């Protein structure tokens, strides 16, 4: 079983991202479960969502406290909350950021950090506003490419199924973000092998 936590701010689409990812994994016949952090959410406040995926039925119905991977939708959360809490050593952190992974030295010490400018990509596809781009679909495209957990095609199909409006733009953003991370050098923490074998996934 692999467990994932998605950090965002209320209104950014962290919970929807977890649902799209669940739907994408379900398309690939995996057992899957996703849920928001059980709290009282407000726009702009830090929020989190979780996902479990397995090849056997998922019986656990409790919170995810030691995730394997993180997705961070807003880079300011890295200083605002302890995003790495419970994250397994060597776990992957995918951050929506214009900056290179090396600019997060406190994270690259212990974890496998990947960045993608999902905000910029979302803007180019007219998703959200400049002050609040809707980054969840773009970052899922990047996640598909760098996690090897799910195919980009499944993510795109799930977006079309789950996102009520502007499906074509959301799909295009996901594909562009996947290309962006594929083109960038992925920083590996020195002397620390990633916990996961990177599965090569063929993309259409």
């Amino acid at each position, binding site marked *: 079983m692999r467990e994932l936590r998605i950090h965002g701010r209320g209104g950014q689409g962290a919970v929807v991202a*977890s*649902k799209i990812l*669940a*739907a994408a994994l*379900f398309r690939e016949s995996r*057992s*899957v*479960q*996703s*849920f*928001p952090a*059980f709290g*009282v959410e407000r726009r702009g406040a830090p929020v989190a969502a979780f996902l479990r995926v397995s090849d056997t039925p*998922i*019986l*656990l*119905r*409790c*919170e995810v*406290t030691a995730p394997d991977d993180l997705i961070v939708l807003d880079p300011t959360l890295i200083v605002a909350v302890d995003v790495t809490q419970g994250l397994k050593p060597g776990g992957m952190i995918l951050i929506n950021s214009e900056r290179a992974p090396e600019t997060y030295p406190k994270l690259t010490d212990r974890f496998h950090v990947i960045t993608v400018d999902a905000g910029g990509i979302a803007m180019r596809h007219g998703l959200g506003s400049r002050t609040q781009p809707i980054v969840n679909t773009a970052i899922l495209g990047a996640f598909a490419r760098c996690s090897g957990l799910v195919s980009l095609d499944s993510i795109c199909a799930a977006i079309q199924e789950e996102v009520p409006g502007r499906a074509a733009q959301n799909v295009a953003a996901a594909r562009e973000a996947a290309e962006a991370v594929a083109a960038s050098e992925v920083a590996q923490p020195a002397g620390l092998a990633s916990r996961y074998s990177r599965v090569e996934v063929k993309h259409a």
Partner: protein
Amino acid sequence: MKKVMMGNHAVSWGVKLARTEVIAAYPITPQTQVVEALSEMCSSGELAARFIKVESEHSAMAACIGASATGARAFTATSSQGLALMHEVLHWAGGGRLPIVMANVNRALAPAWNVWTDQNDSLSQRDTGWIQLYCESNQEVLDTTIQAFKLAEAVDLPVMVVLDAFYLSHTSEPVDIPDQEAVDAFLPRRVARVKMDVNDPRSFGALATPAVYMEMRLRQQEAMELARVTYDEIVEEWGGMFGRRNGAIESYHAEGAEILLVTSGTITSTSRHVVNELRARGEKVGLVKVKMFRPFPTEALRVALAGVPHVAVLDRNISPGHGGIFAEEIRSALYDLAPERRPRVHGYIVGLGGRDVTPAVIEDCLARTRAAAGAGNTPEREDLWVGVKS
């Protein structure tokens, strides 16, 4: 067709497939999405039901009572304070023998304000004359919602379908949605035995003197007893059609067990994980899931638990001044067993107000049970609180 959906929407789908005719509801976290989706289905015409917006939960149940009395299939959903506010009219539905179905998303009662799960809201409605069914997965939620109408209409009693806040209500997972034609075959249109009809006038809610009241209560009790048998039949019929059987109780790895956990709601699912791991290490541990709380499956539990040395009941609820509510009911059910067949019942209070019940908490309960068993001690007179801060 399989689809990834939240527990709340699994309820909505069940209500839609049951071709419910009247829905009256007032929003409350964490239930709101149930009726939100239903109101969308009504406005789009997907569901040909009358959706009545009301000013309170008391009115929601009153509207369901009126609708059900005319022979319509009626539904509402609520949680916690909303259910508490309905209390008076819950008796009217139960005593009036009206087959209303309600989803209650288990949420702790205030004070202090809390939107997270525990069972005190539904369990404090124990004596209102409602059947109560506790679910473990979103699939079971959808299946049970449809079955609930069939059961309610077969015995003329209202049914409460109960699901844990967040751990089911807001959790998305794959759910197999049955075909409408198959559901129609399983659950035909309601035919009310007695209904309000201008062409056949009758009196409803009239004064019942001591000369007749007691017999009405006896009929209600007999209907509850019939519901046990009827639910078994319904589960069997559903299983034959859809391949899934979630009965009033279920034994899991109970064979040869020295300790049996007794659980309800989502704690059951996490407990299955714990039992699997312990069995793999050779420990003789199993579990019994209790889905039906009213009518209480007394006889089935006697059969499932007799001869097992130790039973550990996990209660996500508390009757202040007494203890865990399931544990007390189970002790009572087992009392008449012969002493050598009667299990020792260890009660544990866990997970109140949404506190997480992890495998570690469940293993802690088992470890305490094992320690008491090993020392030859009788169970603690008071149920033990597990997972509380010192």
